[in-house]
Every structure is written in C-alpha cells, then in structure tokens.
C-alpha cells in the first residue's frame, strides 16, 4: 500500500498539510454522486485499481494500450505538496505522489500536430452509479465519460503532475485512483480523476464542465481572484480546517511559474 522511495520536489509548499481524513472524505467525484461524502462511501468498494489500462491515442508516435504498471515503469515517483483550489472556493494542501506529466508525454512522443491533450475518466456505469443515471437528474445530463484537457505547453509544464498516491500511500479510490491529473494552478475540476485515456489532438478539446455550463466554467479555469464565478466570489477561499476565509492568490500562488504561459491573453475572456 505504501509507496517507498518517493523523491522530494522543489515545487512542494511547506504550508500545513490538510488532514488525510479531510482529503479523503470531502470529494467532488460526480461519477459517485454529487454529495461531498458520496465518493468516500461508494468508491472504495466499487472501483478496482488493477487491472487498469491506459490508452494513448491521437497525434502521437507511441500510441497504444498500456497496463498501468508498465505505463509508470522507469518514471521517477516523486512527492509533490501542492495547494488545491476548488472552483467552489475551498482549498487544501495535499501531499501527492506521482510522476511528472511531461515525462509521460515525452514517452508518448506527440507529433507536431498535437496542440492539445485530452484526458478521459473511466466509463463504467457498473462501477460508477452516476453514469447510469437516467431521467431528469442532473447526472443524466452529463455526457459521460468526464473529459478534461490542457494546451500542450500547459501539459508539459513542470508543475503538471499525474498522481498515483497521496500521503505516501496508494491513491484512495475517492481521490481518483489509480491515476489522476493534478494541475495546481487551475481549479480542481481540471484535475481529472481515474484516467483511462490520454489523447493528443490539434483542436481544443470539449471539456465536461465547459460543455455543461459554459458561462460558469471555461476551458482554461486558471485560479484567478479577479474573475468571479457568476454566483460567488473567487477572491477568497476557505482552507479546509480553517474557520475564516483567506485571500485567493493569482494562479493559486503559482504565478511565478505559470504566468508566462498566458502572456498577452485576456484572462477575463479566456477564463
């Protein structure tokens, strides 16, 4: 269960960690329901972590289906302590374990046509009850599987991370086992869980929340205290475990590292 020999990372923050209990019981993973406690009550008994196949497809030389352990072999397993800022205005500090996304992308060898990378969550209504939802429920209106995407320069940025664990242990199901994306300068919904496909493409991918509510959630979804969600302020956030709200930082405090990616862009229009 526990992951040995994790390398430390210069990207880690030294802020107080959010408790393991909080990180693993306060989750948005709508495949298991919209309640914060639905994923921790349902996912551990329903989601099998092995066997797990990851498909690399699209504009890349090294496409195909890879068994997860082969997919990860030879890559450096690191611990990265990142801030996570949810679009709902709460945040955590999480010690992830995993591999840099850039190392995975390098191995896939995308072609010059690959301008974007898309990620898909597992689609299996037997495992994920919300995917079987029918009728008038909101969950039935989602075009499963959940999809997220990054521009190629965002994807190969050294902060972009594929996590396979947290707190030095194998990833709990409710946090997106066995492998999930972590993009710490973007709202949490970009950090897609339980990935089965990584697809390289020339056009900007249609992503789940941007499709569901385009006026509320954009493709970029960079943490930005100056651009409010239509119904709530993004200027402040509640760090889980703290009573009072604290100020939200531009790019979730990673502006020095990532601001150049967006030079010249109007972040109000491209939210």
């Amino acid at each position, binding site marked *: 269960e526990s992951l040995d020999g994790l390398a430390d990372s210069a990207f880690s923050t030294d802020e107080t960690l959010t408790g393991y209990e909080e990180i693993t019981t306060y989750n948005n993973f709508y495949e298991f329901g919209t309640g*914060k406690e639905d994923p921790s009550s349902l996912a551990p008994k329903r989601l099998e972590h092995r066997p797990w196949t990851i498909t690399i497809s699209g504009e890349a030389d090294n496409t195909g289906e890879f068994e997860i352990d082969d997919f990860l072999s030879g890559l450096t397993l690191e611990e990265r302590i990142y801030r996570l800022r949810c679009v709902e205005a709460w945040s955590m500090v999480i010690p992830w374990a995993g591999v840099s996304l850039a190392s995975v992308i390098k191995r896939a060898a995308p072609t010059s046509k690959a301008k974007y990378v898309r990620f898909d969550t597992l689609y299996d209504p037997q495992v994920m009850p919300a995917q079987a939802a029918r009728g008038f429920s909101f969950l039935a209106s989602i075009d499963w599987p959940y999809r997220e995407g990054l521009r190629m320069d965002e994807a190969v940025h050294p902060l972009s991370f594929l996590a396979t664990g947290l707190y030095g242990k194998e990833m709990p199901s409710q946090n997106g086992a066995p492998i999930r994306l972590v993009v710490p300068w973007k709202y949490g919904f970009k950090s897609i869980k339980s990935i089965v496909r990584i697809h390289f493409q020339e056009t900007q991918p249609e992503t789940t929340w941007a499709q569901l509510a385009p006026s509320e959630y954009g493709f970029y979804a960079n943490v930005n205290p100056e651009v409010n969600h239509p119904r709530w302020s993004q200027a402040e956030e509640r760090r889980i475990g703290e009573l009072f709200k604290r100020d939200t930082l531009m790019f979730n405090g990673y502006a020095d590292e990532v601001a150049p990616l967006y030079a010249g862009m109007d972040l109000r229009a491209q939210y």
Partner: protein
Amino acid sequence: MPTLRVGLFILCAVPAGLLIERLLTGGLGANPVEALLHGTGSWGLRLLLVTLAITPLRHLTGANWLVRLRRQVGLWAFAYASAHFSIFIVFEHRAVLSSIVEDIIDRPYILIGTSAFLLLLPLAITSTKGWIRRLGRRWQQLHWLIYPAAVLGVLHFFMLIRANRWTEPLIYAAILALLLGFRALRRWRVV
C-alpha cells in the same frame, strides 16, 4: 398548553442541538462552516413554512389552539435565520462590512437572502404582547411581510443550487404555493 409549548420548544431546538453535537464531535465533515451555513439556512426556511402552515391547518381542522404555537415557531425560524445570517457575516466575510456590501451588490441570491432576513427582523421585534397591543390593526398588516420573506427565502435557495439538485427547493416551493394558494382561495371564499 404549557406542556405543548415546552414540547414544541424542545422539538424546534433538536436540529440546533444536533448541529452543535455534530460540530463538537467532528460529525460535520471537512467543512463544518459550510455544513452549519446550510443546516441553519434549511431549518430557517422549513420552520418559516411550518409557521405559514399553522393558519391553514387551523382552518381545515378547527384546532384553534394551534394559533397559540405560531409565534414560537416563527421565532424559531427567525433564530435559525439569524444564525445563518451571522455565520455568513462572520465566517464568509470575516465581518468586514465592505466585503459584505460588495457580495450583496454583486450576487442577486445574497441580496435576496439578505432581504428575506431583513423582512423577518421587524416581525421578530414586534412579536411581543406589548407590540401587538400597541400596533393594533397595523400589527396584522405588518406581519403580512412573512409572505414576501418566505417567497424570497425559497428563491434564495433556488438560486444557489449547484449541479441541479432541485428536489429540495422544489418541495419548499410546492409547499409555499399550497399555503399561499389556500389563503387566496379562502379570501375569494372558495374554501
């Protein structure tokens, strides 16, 4: 009657007691402030609907003694709404006035929720025997404010719904429509 009132007091205090018990034992989860905010808001709204249900129930059943419980239920609704509003002021906004005002201006559902609370305030203040006597006929007129307060309260709930979890606000809207509809029908002498 006193026994009934004490029983009602205990009943209305149960949700608050449970919230406090869960707060102290960690049962409110990772985000207790959010849980308290939602819990107090929901109970404020539910008890407001219960307050509005008393008169129709009295007319339908002939149980006139029900009216004597109305003030207490109304005050409990106000107590939960006050807790809800206080949590919003203190924990959402660190009690910074400019931050609160900005939120009220920028976000319609906050404006609507605040309006609902402010409409309840004079009703709570004038709920005493002394005020009823002093205001006379105007007391009744003033207390019609409970109708817009309830409508705004339900609207407030509707507007903050995420992920289309409409069931609960729809139930409240249906109950409110029923309660207001009953009054309209009575006014027009249909029932």
